[in-house]
């Protein structure tokens, strides 16, 4: 199994050589847990000695490695995509007999057993999805794919997306079944389960022969980046994120926005920003709302700090995840903004909890909810 890690040997060696630690201070895992071991530098050291045979992987090592939100900020500092190496370490640990930290494993167990990482009853989702009139649209430009977090935890987000699409007369259909895209399972190293999800979801989406519209940054990255790998297909189906579509709708005049007198700041979700390079569209969308003053946080775009939710961190270490979010909320507060906007339901949830934990009165919203309210 260790062969899977050998391709990262060079990166680990480079790290052992230079020891620069430039990845450390911004790492959400390090910021909470605070031994150098939790930064990418720590994890690369472990990889180096693991490959050398000096370090036997065990539950302690797994605890360190799994403490990673996959935010990719270390990649920016390093030049090597160390978050991908860490992801593979998670995969190998997952497939070994080593006991994984509580919470992480649960994500894949639940996905396997119930089809979603929240272990929610899929009938609930089906009833909701079947109530959407567009579900049957035979010919449409887009198939709207709704993710588990939106369906089971942030349903208002779905309502907002639908309002926008209808307002702009976008022709779309909806799949009336919830199947997890596989992202949460993938993030905790369960590549097999992620692949299974990918196979079912791709089958369903391909049948539609429409462009896929994802309003969750996690689903979007999974489709655009990981499906080609998991399915060994270069481009399984075309996909667009709702923020990109809204940007197009605004620029072609399909959306007429009412003014909003507010100072707003934008949190780049790691999946959409750093990992997919979607930085300008959300900013254009926000700036298009008359009256909105968009202000940047100190750490933005490719340097944006993570909300702390990703990579199974929120399930595995809920208190730490919320504490990371609280830091980000404070950063947002210091811009003087009254609304903190993001473009991912998972960030929304974690940032909202972070704000609550420190009694912040900043409003945490998604772009979709903000736009829907200005129609």
């Amino acid at each position, binding site marked *: 199994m260790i062969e899977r890690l050998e391709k990262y040997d*060079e*990166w680990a*060696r*480079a*790290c*052992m*050589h*230079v*020891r*620069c*630690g*430039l990845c*450390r*201070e911004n790492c959400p895992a390090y910021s909470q*847990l*605070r*031994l*150098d*071991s939790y930064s990418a*530098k*720590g994890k690369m*050291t*472990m990889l180096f*000695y693991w490959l050398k045979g*000096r*370090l036997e992987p065990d539950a*302690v*090592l797994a605890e*360190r490695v799994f403490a990673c939100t996959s935010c990719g900020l270390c990649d*920016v*500092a*390093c*030049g*090597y995509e160390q978050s991908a190496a860490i992801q593979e370490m998670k995969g190998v640990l997952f497939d070994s007999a080593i006991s994984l930290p509580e919470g992480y494993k649960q994500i894949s167990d639940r996905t396997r057993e119930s089809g979603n990482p929240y272990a929610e009853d899929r009938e609930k989702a089906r009833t909701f999805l079947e109530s959407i009139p567009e579900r049957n649209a035979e010919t449409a430009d887009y198939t709207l794919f709704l993710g588990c977090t939106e369906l089971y935890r942030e349903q208002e987000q779905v309502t907002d997306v639908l309002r926008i699409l209808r307002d702009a007369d976008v022709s779309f259909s909806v799949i009336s079944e919830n199947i997890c895209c596989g992202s949460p399972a993938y993030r905790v190293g369960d590549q097999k389960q992620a692949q299974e999800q990918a196979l079912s979801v791709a089958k369903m989406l391909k049948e539609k022969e429409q462009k896929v519209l994802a309003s969750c940054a996690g689903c979007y990255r999974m489709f655009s980046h990981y499906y080609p790998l998991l399915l060994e297909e270069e481009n399984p189906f075309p996909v667009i994120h709702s923020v990109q579509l809204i940007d197009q709708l605004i620029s072609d005049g399909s959306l007429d926005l009412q003014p909003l007198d507010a100072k707003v700041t934008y949190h780049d979700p790691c999946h959409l920003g750093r990992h997919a390079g979607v930085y300008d569209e959300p900013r254009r969308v926000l700036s298009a709302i008359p009256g909105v003053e968009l202000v940047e946080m100190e750490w933005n775009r*490719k*340097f944006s700090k993570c909300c702390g939710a990703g990579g199974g961190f929120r399930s595995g270490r809920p208190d730490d995840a919320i504490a990371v979010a609280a830091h980000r909320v404070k950063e947002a507060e210091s811009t003087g903004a009254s609304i903190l906007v993001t473009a991912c339901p998972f960030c929304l949830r974690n940032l909202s909890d972070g704000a609550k934990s420190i009694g912040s009165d900043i409003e945490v919203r998604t772009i979709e909810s903000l736009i829907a309210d200005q129609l």
Partner: protein
Amino acid sequence: MSAPTSLYQQLRAIIGPEYVTEELCDRLVYSKDYSIEGIADDYTPDFVVKPGSVDEIERIIALANEFKMPLYTWGAGTSMSGNPLAVHRGIVLDTKRLNQVLEVDPDNLTITVQAGATMAEVQAAAMKHGVFFTHQPESCLSSTIGGALSCMGISIFGAKYGYAYDQVVGVEVVLGTGKRVRIGGKSYLSVPSHNLMNLFLGAEGTLGIITEAILKVYPLPATRDRVSYAFSDITTAMEACKRVHGAGCWPETVYAFDRRSLVQYMERSKTPIPEELSMAVLFGCSGDHDLVEKMLEVISRSCEQVNGVRMSEEVTESWGDSVNINRETFDKSNFALSHTDYEPDLIDACVPLSKFQEYSDFCDELKKEFGWVDIDFGAFIVAGPRGPIPFCIYFSVPIDTRIPREIEKWFEFKEKMYQRAIAMGGSVSNANGVGLRSAPWVREQLGDAWELLTDIKSLVDPNNILNRGQRGFD
């Protein structure tokens, strides 16, 4: 519950279990810095601890004394000389929980910080108050104030402002005895008697653990600009620097790189470097716009008088960016990418200025002998506190760490280089730390003063707890 007896239990009782580890996976993370010395041997400590207060540090030192257990202070572990490494195992003490900026005082141009704060955090805090902290090594995003004050570090702004330890007006130190002392204060000359502060600056953690420092800050310059020139050899490049100085010009950045070093630094930006270039100098100036413009004009004139060739703006920009790694620019760091096949170690001997060329030629010959040719790690020279005139030439030597023989060769090579420097009337220097790298030559160079130094060490660290086996000490 009975009182904890083992060292491990007692450490946990003092600082809390989550900040004490004896797990191998953690200890290995603290077993190597940015030096070949660190890979040549096993320096895995027995414990890593991360105290959260000076009080805890005092108690850990007391415990280490009780157990006669060596204690190695660790900032970010980015040092280039092996000086934070646990030569005799024992405890590694990570200082980074003491990372607070305690006060920015723009009226008195000081900033008071804890030793575990990173340089980048200190700079950011200063900037928020409209002042500027000048020590900015390329590792400033990760390396700590304590580490910088303990090694004779260089900054891209050093030509104007000096070394890290030129920035200090006061320190708090916990000695090896466990006693806490404060020396200096906010006034720029808090030296009522002997300059005791200097004992602890550049001491690489051998005499005490620095816990707090009062540092100088400066008014923020309005603009910065830079220019770079290529020269046919080192001597001409140094001549240009002397002319710049003679003209009364005081740039903040003066970095000279040979072609190989430049290529290495462009690994990430992929900026092509002219073939014919031998030695190039990057000059950076700061101040009001008209002054900066004038300085660049004078620098250009001085360089052109010795036939320096102005480099393209693209090279100047990429070069400037690649050495200016900070919060806004860390995506430009080339370090990991250029360090995959080789780890360069550093010869930092200080030879008289007029001997730079000769010493460099000697190094090139020796590198050939050792089979290290055509690899993009070369020589570089930086200007320190003497203004635009450089003081110390560094040679980075590429080692393929996968080959044990190559690692051995490094030790043979550096012996030849340091001995040659001494024979040329030069000196082993503690630029970037003595640590394990140049320690073998320290006693010889210090002569009678070595005994004085060991007497001082015994006084402040009688059980030889602090960084045992480092810097030439037993």
